[in-house]
């Protein structure tokens, strides 16, 4: 098989996923808006209005509003959940009762490449989710409560967005191959909820030095690195991890999860 042939197969599979995504676009991405909009509405609009604006933890400068803390956190959370679910949910059906994965397994390409293609397609959805919530989190706030966003490090910001989306989709592929449809509720409760609630959305990681054991425990959470990375790039006024730390974990974590995911996927598909 020529490389051109395999590349063509890969692109055709991407086209298939984009066709399916386009068909469900409004309902999928309407869902993506709801949680971020509610969080921002509560913390950056309602609470300041009633005089209980949350304080910005971690000794930020005077310009730092709570929405400045929230922006990276919510973009990271939206990307992670959407990128993960975009791979896991269809995969549970395709590997389960539908068995419709066979259609693409019989395509003339290695099975691991189909796994990588699923990661790529999920990452596209994660990225779209991250970009779509951006206007919500930057524009929805009470007067004087807007976020302070810096664009000087935009190349690093874009790289982090892409890497974060790939990480989310890789985690989605792995989860989709190790659980079955009956365990979805448990997966959301045991994996997704702790990841998002303890993902340093509402405070920078440095502020956790007051509760040292939590600060250490959340280092197992991939969303922490993604949110810290986004903080470092677009809200550098808020304390954040050093670049080497989040970049190292994001890159290695993505590679490790993609490897684990494609391996587990191949084992599920081939007997």
């Amino acid at each position, binding site marked *: 098989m020529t490389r051109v042939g395999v590349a063509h197969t890969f692109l055709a599979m991407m*086209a298939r996923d984009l066709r399916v995504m386009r068909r469900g676009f409004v309902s999928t991405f309407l869902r993506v808006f709801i949680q971020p909009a509610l969080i921002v509405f509560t913390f950056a609009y309602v609470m300041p209005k009633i005089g209980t604006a949350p304080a910005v933890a971690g000794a930020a400068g005077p310009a730092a509003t709570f929405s400045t803390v929230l922006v990276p956190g919510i973009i990271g959370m939206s990307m992670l959940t959407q990128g993960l679910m975009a791979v896991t949910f269809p995969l549970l059906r395709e590997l389960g009762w539908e068995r419709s994965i066979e259609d693409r397994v*019989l395509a003339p390409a290695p099975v691991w490449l189909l796994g990588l293609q699923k990661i790529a397609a999920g990452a596209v959805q994660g990225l779209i989710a991250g970009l779509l919530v951006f206007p919500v989190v930057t524009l929805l706030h009470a007067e004087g409560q807007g976020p302070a966003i810096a664009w000087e490090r935009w190349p690093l910001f874009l790289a982090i967005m892409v890497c974060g989306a790939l990480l989310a989709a890789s985690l989605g592929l792995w989860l989709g191959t190790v659980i079955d449809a009956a365990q979805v509720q448990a997966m959301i409760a045991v994996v997704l909820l702790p990841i998002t609630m303890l993902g340093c959305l509402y405070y920078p990681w440095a502020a956790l030095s007051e509760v040292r054991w939590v600060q250490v425990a959340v280092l197992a959470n991939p969303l922490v690195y993604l949110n810290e990375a986004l903080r470092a790039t677009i809200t550098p006024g808020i304390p954040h991890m050093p670049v080497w730390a989040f970049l190292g974990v994001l890159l290695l974590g993505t590679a490790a999860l993609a490897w684990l995911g494609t391996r587990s996927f191949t084992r599920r598909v081939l*007997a």
Partner: protein
Amino acid sequence: MSAAIRTVGLRKTYRSARGEVEAVRGLDLEVAPGGFFGLLGPNGAGKSTTIGMLTTLVRPTGGRAWVAGAEVSRDPIGVKRRIGAATQRSTLDQALDVTENLEFRGRFFGMSGRDARSRARELIELFGLGDRRTAMPRELSGGQARRVMIGRALMHRPEVLFLDEPTAALDPQTRVALWEILRALHADGQTILLTTHYLEEAEALCGRIAIVDHGRLLAEGTVAELKASVPADEPPSLEAVFLTLTGRGRRE
């Protein structure tokens, strides 16, 4: 390599925590190009595992197998390029409609969008699915879904077509209609390997038949050759051959 399908000592042992199951135990088969070959056996005989190995979905644990000259373990991509397969259960892409199921299959195999569209149209006509071209798989009847599955398997003009129990659970009218399509395909030179446990289906369609059970080949030949092997006190039917070879015990 002149055979369309050849297996030598092909073997599959499933290993799990509960122990080992020998599904296929050293199978030797040969199917000539253009042949219509039936793999006949009771439930649990190893038919689906054999098709699985020949279509690269199941990894052999011993022996070797070639399909259209490509070896299944060493060149799975080469095998996949040369085969079409329709499995027993519907594996249609539930997120795509009938036409899209066919078109994307073509595009996965390197066809341009235009070629895939015209080939899909051609097959939809051939299989009498014209009024169902935009139906989603869940809206299809069992017989329609089976026809879409076979049409999809033919999209890229495979050298060898594998059909695993193509008419299982279909009503007699639908079954006979599907037979007509398969006969026409074979008359056009399509090599077909079909598994079935319907004796009349094998007899109606297949030029050569292999009877397998417990993962082993028990007999192989034309229908006439197999009937001639029946003991003198039995009627010369394929059913007698089958029961003589595989026993009369009930299978689950």
